[in-house]
């Protein structure tokens, strides 16, 4: 993980916004699929969104550190302890 300059912070927010909107859509598809598990149209939309999310999370974690404890990418450093934490983000 490299130290951040201004354009990094802009990129961070941009990728986070993408992940957030994918999460929102995936959440709704999950609730729908719970009750309609055989709906193929919903299933293929879900598959597409889940693929895009995996890709976005991979891009985020590589540059800005892990989103979960399973996403530490640096083999020699435990980046999970590095801030900022969500409640420490400043405008």
């Amino acid at each position, binding site marked *: 993980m490299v130290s951040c300059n201004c354009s990094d912070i802009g990129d961070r927010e941009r990728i*986070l916004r993408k*992940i*957030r909107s994918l*999460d929102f859509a995936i*959440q709704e598809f*999950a*609730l729908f699929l*719970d*009750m309609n*598990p055989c709906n193929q149209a919903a299933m293929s939309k879900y598959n597409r969104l889940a693929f895009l999310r995996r890709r976005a999370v991979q891009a985020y974690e590589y540059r800005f*550190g*892990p*989103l*979960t*404890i*399973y996403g530490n990418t640096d083999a020699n450093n435990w980046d*999970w302890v590095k801030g900022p*934490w*969500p*409640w420490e*983000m400043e*405008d």
Partner: protein
Amino acid sequence: MWTYEKKLQYPVRIRRPNPAAAKLIITQLGGPDGELAAAMRYLNQRFAMPYDRVKALLTDIGTEESVLTSLSVIWYSFSTRGGG
């Protein structure tokens, strides 16, 4: 059981701290009608649910309510920062 994600579900920007609003929002966190109680109800009801689809639904809604709880915590802490 659950996995913490180091990001907000929705970005919160508090421009002017508002203790009155914070007082209202905190009621959505704790108490009998708060998000935390709702999350626990959904997750506990799963164990008596005979239908697989609804087991999944209760699990997902209960999880989502737990996320909303953490959102409320963060919102509240921002609301009171410097506001008393």
